[in-house]
């Protein structure tokens, strides 16, 4: 069987102070963090594929109990997986370490010009053709309204240069051909055993019974986004990353 609920019960019953007790074994906490968290959140939580944790405030984990629950259960709708295997002690150690990283945080220094980056986003990069920021832009790829809070500068830069490296389970590029010969390319919105829902690049929505398709190709390890390595100069990349890093979901 799967021990999950009980761990949460432990956690919620635990003395709140127990999440970051003064006598925590820092070396063990670091080891838990390094083996279970740093893979996505980067060394010392400076961010990678996952957001930086070396920040004074965590948006989803305002309280220690919330932080413990997120470590334990993951964050639905994101790539943060559940880590109930850590057990009460491991979760406590990991949470304490994350809080310590936050307490020692210095504001992220991202080189580049935010204003110029915004112009590149709207102009040369044509990024708003696929991404939304607040009410602006077309919804084809991921919404970027709070991307600066979710991705480190290094992670954003990597996604621009090597989009495939940032491809996840969402936004899978698909190509479908119906038995009548109609061809549709786009990103997968959803799929079950018998149907698939696709958004094409023009913004048109398609829903198919799989039985009407003669071909269905899915590329989960690819991104629909082109690489910007050759489109932008080094300075322009820096400006764009600075702009994206400034997007924190706060209008």
């Amino acid at each position, binding site marked *: 069987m799967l*021990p999950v609920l009980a761990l949460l019960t432990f956690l919620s019953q635990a003395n709140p102070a127990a999440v970051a007790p003064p006598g925590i074994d820092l070396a063990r906490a670091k080891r838990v963090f390094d083996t279970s968290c740093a893979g996505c959140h980067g060394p010392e939580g400076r961010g990678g594929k996952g957001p930086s944790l070396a920040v004074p405030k965590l948006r989803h984990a305002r309280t220690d109990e919330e932080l413990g629950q997120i470590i334990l259960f993951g964050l639905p709708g994101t790539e943060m997986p559940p880590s109930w295997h850590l057990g009460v002690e491991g979760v406590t150690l990991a949470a304490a370490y994350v809080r310590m990283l936050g307490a020692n945080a210095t504001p992220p220094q991202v080189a580049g010009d935010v204003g110029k980056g915004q112009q590149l986003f709207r102009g040369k990069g044509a990024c708003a053709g696929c991404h939304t920021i607040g009410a602006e832009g077309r919804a084809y790829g991921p919404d970027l309204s709070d991307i600066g809070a979710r991705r480190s500068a290094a992670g954003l830069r990597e996604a621009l240069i090597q989009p495939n490296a940032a491809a996840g389970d969402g936004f899978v590029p698909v190509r479908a051909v119906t038995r009548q010969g109609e061809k549709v390319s786009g990103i997968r919105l959803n799929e079950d055993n018998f149907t698939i829902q696709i958004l094409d690049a023009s913004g048109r929505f398609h829903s198919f019974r799989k039985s009407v398709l003669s071909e269905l190709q899915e590329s989960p390890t690819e991104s629909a986004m082109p690489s910007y390595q050759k489109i932008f100069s080094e300075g322009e990349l820096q400006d764009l990353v600075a702009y994206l890093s400034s997007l924190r979901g706060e209008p």
Partner: protein
Amino acid sequence: MRFLLTAACVTVVVAAQVPYTRIVNADKEPQNWLTYSRTYNGQRYSPLAQITPANVAHLKPLWTYQIEQMDHFETTPIAVDGILYLTEPPDAVSAVDARSGRRLWRYVRPVPADIQVCCGRVNRGVAILDNTVYAGTLDAHLLALNARNGALEWDITVADYKSGHSLTGAPLAIAGKVVVGIAGGEYGIRGFIDAYDAKSGKQLWRFWTVPGSGQPGNQTWTADSWRRGGAPAWVTGAYDPDSNVLYWGTGNPGPDWNPDGRSGDNLYSCSMVALDANTGQLKWHFQFTPHDSHDYDSTNVPMLMDGVVRGQPRKLVALANRNGFYYLLDRTTGEFLSAKPYAKFTWTTGIDDSGRPKVDRSMEPSENGTLVWPSLYGATNWFSPSYSPAAKLVYISVREQSSYFYKTQAEYQKGAMFTGGGERAMGGGKASGAVRALDALTGNMKWEFKLQSPPWSGLLSTAGGLVFGGSMEGNFYALDALTGKPLWDYQTGAEMYSNVMSFAVDGEQRIAVTSGHALFVFGLQ
């Protein structure tokens, strides 16, 4: 169609007596579903044949019954003469009109706030005998309710819930007795299977799935590790009325993932036990996974069948085990006959001629995690397989998934998790599912129907030539029982943690399944 006419007449009576003889002869009234797997042999096969590959395209939802809580709804309804009896998580038992879906009565008994259940506040159904409905509770009580109005007849404590004991499976009612298996293998409990007098609730016997000091098998545990040895029995077993023997699967030894403190085979964990139903005495046991360290419970529904194996006619018991192998045993002697993999596995290099796995020690849980197939959830789990005596095929809902298995220290504390580690299952594109049809006697795969992701839904096969199952994407579907070809599907709108069943009212076949927090009932239109 004579039985169907009979059904229409019987329903004039408000609620029928269900003596033991009716359950033994369940095949004489295929319009009803009188015990967890319909028949004592655990086959989950319906002789109803009105819905067929030719007309299943006209299957439509007729009514839906919704529960009021957000817990997984895993019940198998019991159908008796036009009334469905079911459990609603976390703490209710209901009777519902099988024609309209309207509730007739509901008994609610709030569960304590401090219950310890590792894996959700779930319950898989009731048992019925004579005029009484039986249900286990999350705080490890056994309830007897009047089938006519839901009034409480008795309520007994099976075990102390504060030490992590609970009841999640449907009880099994046999002649004069109600049999239950305890859950709580993640809490350092000592597992057992109990029988209670159906009229009074008095305990008749207890079989400890971990033998006590001085008992045979106790030497397979280090020191007093047996006291916290686990081996729960949380999925309903099968029963052979001719020999009066119960067949029951047992779960993981405790602590789950750190086996260092319990060297030895750890009997009778991850085993099948055959028990004399009168006394609870052990007739034989077979251990599928000795000294388990991957939580490969053998708590799968045993399927009793007869057949010729290597030229010899045998009374058989088959089990599609969570560890990825399909086993055939002689159910009279417990003799191992065969084990065939039906899913990807890496925890062992194979099974030897005696049925013992050749365990790969490099696949043991470790501090930094060891990637092993199948995952902690197993190649299958509690949800039922099905055996069609017409097709001679066993149908299994298969999970193709791996996990990182972690090992930590385990320290026993009453009511606290005692697992010695944990696991992280690989999801997304790294996991998938399937329905696989195996030749029941050889284990050879006849066909497979691929699923988008690992399922949590059991299967039903029917005399109409169909297999019904569900997916985590909400698809409820019908497959051709001989070819696996999908013939019909319906989007139920939620993840399906379910077991499919079938009944008939007014001569019309129905198919029932839970999805999300609702029970859907389908019929031809």
